[in-house]
């Protein structure tokens, strides 16, 4: 049961603080640029970039660098990426479209986020594999 170690919890906590604050400021920035109803632009960008980062790090950790410390991995993926991206805000924004009867945006936002984020995952994996080739040329 070594996942009860305080070190893992501390690492995750640190990553989570940075992730959540980044998410908050990013959505506030989106609202200040595009308007108060356009926070979902921020959420979309956050989720997509977060997916890219987590795919990059996890691919590096599992396929390429074999001695990454678990604390570092937890801090960056479970902590940062996990807190930086959000599923609940995404669904709440979708429900807002539903409530307003804006079915077009509902579908575009729901499916669009899902698809683009999976593309970002793939890009993250490819970037990780490509960076390996650069180092060991």
């Amino acid at each position, binding site marked *: 049961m070594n996942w009860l170690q305080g070190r893992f919890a501390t690492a995750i906590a640190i990553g*989570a603080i940075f992730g*959540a604050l980044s998410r908050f400021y990013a959505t506030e920035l989106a609202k200040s640029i595009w308007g108060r109803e356009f926070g979902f632009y921020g959420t979309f960008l956050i989720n997509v970039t977060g997916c890219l980062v987590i795919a990059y790090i996890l691919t590096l950790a599992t396929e390429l660098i074999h001695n990454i410390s678990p604390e570092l991995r*937890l801090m960056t993926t479970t902590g940062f990426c*996990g807190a930086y991206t959000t599923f609940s805000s995404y669904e709440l924004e979708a429900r807002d479209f*539903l409530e307003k009867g804006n079915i077009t945006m509902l579908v575009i936002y729901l499916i669009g986020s899902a698809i683009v984020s999976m593309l970002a*995952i*793939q890009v993250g994996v490819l970037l990780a594999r490509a960076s390996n080739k650069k180092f060991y040329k």
Partner: protein
Amino acid sequence: MRRPFSVDALLYNAAMSDIINILMIAAGAVAGALARFYITEWTKAKFSPKFPYATFAINLTGCLAIGFFFTISQGITGYPSELDLLIRIGFLGSYTTFSTYGFDTLTLWRSKQIMTTVFYWLGSVIFGLGAVVLGAAIAKLI
């Protein structure tokens, strides 16, 4: 020497409210991420690793909660924004995750279980929306 509307007082209040906001978000985020981590570890020990039960359940319960708390906050005048930051932006935003969901989908895809992958990928989204609606409905009953 009371100058209630001095620039100093305004700046102080602005700075304090910023700090309080940051503390609220941070506190919620730590709790949310740790909850997500412990639930995931416990689930990995108990259930088959073939399906991301933990992330699925976490995202769905998080959506249920956000529907509930958001609706509550809309219904109460003077609902403190700090509480909203703590619960919704801090805790629920950190508790639920899109990145883990995305990587789980990739892992499922690589395991060649196509039907399961599609179920997880689309099911999370659709059931998540249903969870928000359900949470909101429950809040309205109160």
